[in-house]
């Protein structure tokens, strides 16, 4: 039941050291029962948000981490990034695509007019205006100062509203009990999860696992700080035409695609 909540010491970067929410809960439970949720809400919010923000520590507000996928370099049929993500974050598929976790997937596109096909990885796009975080009732879905969008798995109640709101099918709900979890990527049945941009690696200055794996195949994924005009990724974005998936929705994804 509570596997996700125990294994974590807060190293996942989700913004909650284990037990923080529970402390808040205990502190306010008595009051909540007495006063009723309505009257209490404003005070509680201040309390909870104060700590959550303090804990999104490590995130540098001057940065915005992002990726650029060069679709022309993405090898059709290659799933190196997907496998690397599974190994890194400890999720696996069981042959039931609709309920299996899908942190990252390969999508094949076919232009019906020309018949040309392309393939590209799709994962959480780490939107600048993430609808998942807007709709999340508890604030479990949130964006770090450096643009990485995460789920605080200790606070998620499993309502799945974020999944309704995400335009990219980027989130998965854990439908079954789990085993073999990675300490840096706590997961738990009944909560929602998705690509963390390998926040545990990024915070140590290492690129995400998919980027590293792809470098060995097509070298299609580039990672970096898109807020810094001098970064490699920003230079490419400034030079070539790139696009965001469903850029028309105005959520400003941090993942861009080139040669789509």
């Amino acid at each position: 039941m509570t596997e996700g909540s125990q294994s974590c010491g807060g190293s996942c970067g989700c913004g909650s050291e284990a037990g923080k929410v529970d402390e808040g809960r205990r502190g306010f439970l008595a009051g909540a029962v007495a006063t009723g949720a309505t009257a209490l809400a404003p005070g509680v919010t201040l309390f909870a948000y104060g700590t959550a923000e303090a804990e999104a520590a490590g995130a540098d507000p001057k940065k915005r981490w992002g990726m650029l996928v060069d679709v022309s370099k993405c090898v059709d049929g290659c799933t190196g990034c997907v496998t690397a993500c599974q190994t890194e974050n400890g999720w696996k598929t069981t042959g039931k695509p609709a309920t299996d976790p899908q942190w990252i997937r390969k999508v094949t596109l076919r232009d019906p007019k020309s018949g040309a096909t392309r393939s590209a990885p799709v994962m959480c796009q780490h939107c600048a205006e993430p609808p998942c975080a807007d709709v999340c009732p508890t604030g479990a879905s949130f964006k770090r100062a450096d643009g990485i969008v995460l789920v605080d798995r200790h606070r998620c109640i499993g309502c799945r509203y974020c999944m309704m709101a995400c335009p990219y099918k980027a989130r998965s709900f854990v439908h079954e009990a789990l085993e073999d979890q990675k300490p840096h990527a706590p997961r738990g049945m009944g909560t929602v999860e998705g690509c963390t941009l390998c926040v545990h690696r990024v915070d140590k200055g290492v690129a995400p696992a998919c980027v590293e794996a792809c470098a060995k195949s097509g070298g299609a994924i580039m990672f970096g700080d898109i807020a810094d005009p001098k970064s490699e990724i920003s230079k490419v974005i400034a030079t070539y035409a790139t696009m965001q998936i469903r850029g028309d929705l105005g959520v400003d994804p941090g993942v861009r695609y080139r040669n789509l």
Partner: protein
Amino acid sequence: MANIVYTECQGGQRFWALLGALLMVVAIGAASALYMEHNGHIVTGMSNEIVWGLPHVFAVFLIVIASGVLNIASLGSVFGEMQYKPKARLSGVLAITFLVGGLAILVLDLGRPDRLTVAMTNYNFRSIFAWNVLLYSGFIAVVVAYLVVQMTRTWARYTPHVGLVAFLWRLTLTTGTGSIFGFLIARSPYASAVLAPLFIAMSLAYGLAVFILIRLALENSASRGLGDELLQRLMRLLVIFVGSVLYFSGVFHFTSIYTAWRVGWESYLLLDGGLYTLLFWGLYVILGTLVPIAMLYGRTGVTRQREIVGSVLVLIGGFAHIYVIIIGGQAYPLELFPGYEVTSSFNDGVVASYVPTLPELGLGLGGAGLALVLAMVAMRVFRLLPQGDGVSNADAS
């Protein structure tokens, strides 16, 4: 008003038998919830594509009814329609119990229902969902206050004021429920402002249908006559409400047809959506709207049987309608790459399939059962029901 005499429901064999049966349904609901919580949502038909399933259809249906059923009370105290006043107490109590039934389903369907306290102590005020939590708890508080002022002599004079607050709160609540879907920008089946008025119309129609059925049931069990004249009025009102649901549903789909990125969904739903198309036209439009309108419209001296069948059909149609909106809307694939044919390991570009399982049905029925059980208990404990039809002495006062 002061002359109306209220009594408790006296119980009796039928009362206890029905209560027992409903308690069984509630027990099945509780068992289903436990089973789902223990095994995870893998035992349901829900998936990462159909994230909200049959339980949500039940929950939204009950919540919409809760708001609508309060309308009877509003007609009495806000719009000063004397005939409705004797029914205000029952209407208020039903509003609360149906809301509680719906919310119970929502909570028990959470991935982590044990974290309810987290939801109650962490509010994200940008979330319409969090606002709904406040709207729901506030609704219960306001309706309780409304009942208290109605039932105590000292505060009775505040009834119209509290009634007005309850009326406005209820409109906001239903707007909020509709907005849960209306704000989903990426999903072509939902992102529309028309969902809010559509939900309000649904609440009026389905709430009234439930009220009529419960009144008729009470009449049979405890021989409390509901003034025939009043019942005829309610039936006429039902026709108007059902018609307005159809109207707003029409506006909703018509405006979608003229919105380029939503055309795909509309032609899917209206023409080739298989089950969803069938539910929409067959159950909602024909059986749940046109047939009851034809049965009840412009008739005098409608028989009890016709009233019952008409109201039941309206509810069946309403349930199908909400099913189509919630499930059908999710089944239709999200469009990530407009203009391309897409395939992936995660069913991109494919209509998602959904087959609800028994625990989901159990949970949904359990919530509906809970609403009725609570209503019956309230009727037994509090003086909610006017003696006789309550109309004659109301007029006399």
